[in-house]
């Protein structure tokens, strides 16, 4: 009995992957019905296989992985790809010609014109007798060359080589686009690094000045807090910091603000110790707290309450910054966050929102709960791990 059950288990374990594999293989074979349709599908499929390796630009690794598919597209005996300096890959028959391939491409790299070559070879059985060299261009600049070799360079092969080169060009342009987008994102993240407001510096210094005569000890403490705060905010290295560091800086900021406003500003912090080591974008909470202080206090007389909560939620950390001030019109806020209108109060929020989206993806943008006269609550979610995000 037990052996039967055991055998059944093994049978299931073996047969399920086998069935899945068979379905996958069968699914591929069923593509297309007529020969023409099938040929089209196969060509498109080959092209789609050659595309991704080229999306990293003209590199030896990418060219090598794409070359087999490109040769299949061309139907040539051999294929070579060069950039401006050297041969990147030689694929196909007649390896002994690999050394000459860059020489064949030299003229094309120079003037950017297609050329047809006749190749001398002493080996009788070598299929490589003629070659077509076409330029690869990006932004009307020749960045490399593609050479197709065969027994004879028919008009068909020339035409096909030109078409394939055009297709490769478009892939390389996409690669260039990818690269510039990446550069742009990096530059943006750097540029978006929040700056502390000049008003705050000015106000802090005036507050401290007011204590210098009446309470010199306190003035000294506040000045040291201010020094620590600015040292942290002006630091140059690293895009990321830990939540603990960020909260420490916020604490210094709040100390200075409370020295200025006294009992008018009441702050509650509830921080789960589990989330303190989480890596966060540098100064990503500071603008939110600044906003809350301004909204909670300056727009009405009386006492402003601010609550900062950081909670542990499995693979994420949830942070909320809440004030009981005047609140905002949700529609207006939405437009500020979308960058349609600029407002001095929303700049910090929009900035943080954009940076979080850049780093973690769109699903990690700010979520703001607000209404006229109902206060404002800004929620931030931060994943505990994200590839490439680390404090050091």
């Amino acid at each position, binding site marked *: 009995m037990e052996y039967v059950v055991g055998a059944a288990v093994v049978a299931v*374990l073996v047969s399920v992957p086998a069935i899945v594999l068979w379905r996958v293989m069968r699914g591929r074979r069923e593509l297309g019905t007529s020969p023409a349709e099938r040929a089209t599908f196969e060509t498109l499929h080959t092209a789609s296989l050659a595309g991704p390796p080229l999306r990293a630009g003209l590199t030896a690794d990418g060219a090598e992985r794409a070359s087999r598919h490109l040769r299949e597209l061309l139907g040539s005996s051999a294929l070579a790809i060069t950039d401006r300096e050297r041969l990147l890959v030689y694929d196909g028959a007649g390896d002994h010609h690999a050394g000459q391939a860059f020489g064949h491409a030299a003229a094309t790299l120079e003037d950017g014109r297609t050329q047809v070559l006749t190749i001398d070879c002493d080996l009788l059985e070598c299929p490589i007798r003629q070659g077509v060299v076409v330029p690869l261009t990006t932004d009307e600049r020749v960045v490399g060359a593609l050479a197709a070799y065969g027994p004879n360079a028919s008009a068909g092969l020339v035409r096909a080589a030109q078409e394939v080169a055009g297709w490769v060009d478009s892939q390389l342009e996409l690669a260039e686009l990818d690269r510039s987008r990446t550069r742009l994102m990096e530059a943006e993240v750097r540029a978006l690094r929040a700056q502390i407001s000049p008003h705050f510096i000015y106000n802090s210094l005036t507050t401290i000045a007011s204590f210098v005569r009446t309470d010199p000890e306190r003035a000294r403490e506040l000045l040291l807090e201010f020094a620590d705060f600015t040292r942290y905010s002006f630091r140059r290295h690293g895009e990321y910091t830990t939540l603990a560091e960020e909260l420490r800086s916020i604490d210094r900021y709040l100390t200075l603000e409370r020295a200025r406003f006294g009992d008018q500003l009441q702050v509650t912090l*509830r921080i789960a110790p589990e989330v303190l080591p989480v890596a966060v974008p540098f100064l990503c909470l500071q603008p939110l707290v600044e906003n809350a202080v301004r909204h909670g206090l300056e727009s009405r007389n009386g006492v402003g309450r601010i609550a900062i909560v950081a909670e542990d939620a499995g693979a994420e950390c949830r942070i909320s910054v809440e004030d009981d001030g005047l609140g905002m019109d949700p529609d207006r806020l939405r437009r500020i966050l979308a960058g349609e209108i600029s407002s001095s109060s929303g700049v910090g929020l929009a900035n943080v929102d954009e940076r979080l989206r850049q780093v973690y993806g769109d699903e990690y943008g700010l979520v703001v709960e607000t209404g006229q006269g109902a206060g404002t609550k800004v929620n931030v979610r931060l994943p505990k791990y994200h590839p490439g995000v680390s404090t050091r």
Partner: protein
Amino acid sequence: MSLAAVLVVMVAAVLIGAFGIRVSRTTSDFYVASRTVSPLWNASAIGGEYLSAASFLGVAGLILSYGVDMLWLPVGWTGGYLVLLVLVSAPLRRSGAYTLPDFAEARLESMTVRRTASVLVVLIGWLYLMPQFQSAGLVLRSITGAPVWAGGLLVAVVVAVNVLSGGMRSITFVQAFQYWLKLTALAVPLVFLLMAWRDDGAPPVTGDDAGAWLVPLGGGKEYALYSTYSLILATFLGTMGLPHVLVRFYTNPDGRAARRTTLVVLSLLGAFYLLPALYGWLGRVYAPDLVRTDEVVLALPQRMIGGTLGDLLTALATAGAFAAFLSTSSGLTVSVAGVIAQDLLKGGVRSFRVATLMAVVVPLGLALWARALPVADVVGLAFAVAASSFCPLLVLGIWWRRLTTTGALAGLFVGGGLACGAVLATVIGGPYEGPAGALLAQPAAWTVPIAFTVMVAVSFLTPDRVPPGVARTMVRLHAPEDLDVDRGDWRPRSS
């Protein structure tokens, strides 16, 4: 009395889950709040989550049945942290990974490896949860006479409600408290039991097979030597692959603190595991006739002391047992649900709810349907799977530059697959007779070497699949945090 104790534990768990520990602090206390969790607290929390029904009940039962051979079980479960301390804890913390799939992605830069690791995490979690539910059923039956499914269902429901309501997620202090509760619940009755034993004239282990019980490999188990070595391998190397333990290391602020925490865990567990061994030995003296040996911890107070005191002590031990079921199960459920939601479903709050139900229902189904093995044996199988999949991944990933994506994948598939196959065969069809039975019941001795070999061999065969950022990752894993070196910068995900 015992029922009341169980109810108190359950209600307390639900209340903590529903309301959480909401202590507000004003800014003046902020520096206290900002201090990160200390290694002692963190280690207690790890102990609280780690000491499951298998440790609380199972070890004593197995020692009672099979003798001193089974001492390897608590030794291995503690010793696993030694391996973790030496080879894994600090580099893992420095990698910044929260879960095992995170580490796989960070080190090997491949989503395929990440997904494979996720599937394995889920399988190990299920395998570990199943015996928790099963023993909850057994314990509830022994104190109330309720059917076996009732206890498992009760624990499953409480855990699901708790996790869904957001409580008991990973509040360090609650989990740390669980460790001390479990320790007390075993230690206090034991003091009384030892006093009763002395008053009784300190009787030795008696019976025909007393000699065999007291010497290694004398328990009459077939292939005892092989099983022992296999068990040692599984427990020493499996601990590092347990999903609910590893997420705790993230709470440490740096690699150094992670090492310290591991060291404290070692001593806490060492202290705890003395107790079940004594229970097993007392059980051999006073209750060698027990049929369901997993219940020896609960049965001894009645047998040796009796009366109201006996009742009270039983109640305390039962409360400890349910605390063990709840803490381990909720820790596992959170980890498994997190991985299901993030990697196998779409992510987000809704997915997490669905994932929580999946994380609880599948092992509950298994617990009700599969045959009841001794709880410590099933947990041992979970260790075997972890040892033959994540141990090679972590050890080679941290210490070997030439590990390739393909190699890691092949190793995970072969090692994890073989171990899972053996486990399924044992749980569903076993136990088998003869050498095949021993190989299937304790697979680690052959699956772990195979997994390592496959991972290394395939890596050698595919040298071009070494992840491009390996040098930088290695610097990040091994350089102490206060060393100023280039650890790489953030780049947008390429696709």
